[in-house]
């Protein structure tokens, strides 16, 4: 627009040029690049690798130090998840990717009258289990949530229509709905308030969100933000198909349980409960 091309061109000239353009587009394969999705792109680093199976082992033997919420804070900051802290009831619109809950809520059916007493009081860290057999994926009508070949149950926020089938399908409450715009916006400019991480997008009203195992960080060779943030090193992330991985070592060494494993969802978050 700034170059002023096309100025003074008459109708005939325009048609001639347009015809030439169409011809050259048909003759030169490169001309079609824009029309073929992905054709102009060379696939590079960061593509999910088939054959991997990402999983997490949560060491819940000692429980988190009282009041520690480092993993949750890191996740909120990394993914621009608002806490609604200044609301009268912050839980009303709460968005949870990773959170803490009581042992009973995390593992219903495992209650025992005379179980270890500290289990009663300790909080368990829970998140999306990236199930191997994910009901959320089965029910999503738009494939907005889908399973990557490396096992991550991914969300495509662009494609979510907010039907909330997945929330009904997930037996773990791992999904949150944006009942309203997560970040207040300036009415005049449409810009949101300062985001904690300007390099990561937000979501909008009517979209479901959940943990993505930090796929964007994995692509850059980083560990998930929660794993990196835990000073106690209670969260371990890795590839179960790699025999030398930290997750495999923990699974080999300890007896672990999974949340509601009897449902057949094959959760990929494992909990070390006892020695």
């Amino acid at each position, binding site marked *: *627009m*700034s170059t002023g091309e096309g100025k003074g061109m008459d109708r005939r000239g325009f048609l001639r040029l347009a015809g030439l353009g169409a011809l050259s587009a048909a003759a030169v394969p490169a001309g079609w690049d*824009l*029309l073929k*999705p*992905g054709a*102009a*792109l*060379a*696939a*590079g*680093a*960061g*593509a*999910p690798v088939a054959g991997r199976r990402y999983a997490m082992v949560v060491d819940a033997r000692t429980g988190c130090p009282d009041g520690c919420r480092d993993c949750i804070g890191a996740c909120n900051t990394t993914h621009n998840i608002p806490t609604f802290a200044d609301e009268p009831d912050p839980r009303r619109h709460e968005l949870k990717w990773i959170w803490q809950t009581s042992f009973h809520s995390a593992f219903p059916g495992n209650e025992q009258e005379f179980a270890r007493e500290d289990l009663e009081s300790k909080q368990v860290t829970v998140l999306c289990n990236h199930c191997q057999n994910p009901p959320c994926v089965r029910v999503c009508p738009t494939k907005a949530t*889908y399973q*990557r*070949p490396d096992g991550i149950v*991914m969300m*495509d*926020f*662009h494609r979510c229509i907010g039907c909330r089938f997945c929330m009904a399908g997930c037996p773990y409450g791992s999904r949150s709905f944006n009942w309203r715009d997560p970040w207040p916006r300036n009415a005049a400019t*449409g*810009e*949101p308030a*300062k*985001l904690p991480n*300007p*390099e990561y*997008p*937000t*979501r*909008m009203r009517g979209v479901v969100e959940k943990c993505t195992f930090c796929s964007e960080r994995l*692509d850059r060779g980083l560990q998930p933000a929660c794993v990196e943030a835990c000073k106690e090193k209670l969260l371990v992330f890795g590839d179960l198909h790699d025999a030398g991985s930290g997750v495999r070592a923990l699974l080999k060494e300890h007896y672990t349980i999974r949340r509601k494993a009897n449902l057949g969802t094959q959760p990929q978050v494992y909990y070390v409960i006892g020695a």
Partner: protein
Amino acid sequence: MIYDKGKIFLGLAIFVALVASPFWYNPVFGTGKTAPPEPKLPKTATLCVLPKAQMRAGHMQVIYDWRETVVRGGGRMYRHPDGVEREMSLSNTCLKCHEGKKEFCNTCHTYLAVKPFCWDCHFDPKEQA
């Protein structure tokens, strides 16, 4: 024989004038030509991911391709025809070179009255800072 000929033709004339208003409103009441948008171009960067003409006509398709590739698992890196690699990212690649959303993207979008929904969730890190 038409009853109320005068009223009918007056009504018709008003109707035609109203329907044709998009054609005459600007020449009659307009304040002259609207200045074409002048998006600010990057000062230092010279190499865009595609030639200017292609970007101008098809940047939405490029961005759409990037989105599908990144989110739906095809990888994150774009290889420039002459070998330079860039991350496929609206906020972190396009808007790192370009002046900013306000000075670059918005100028044409406002002129053409298009409201791309990219900006529902993606922002210009510079304007955020």
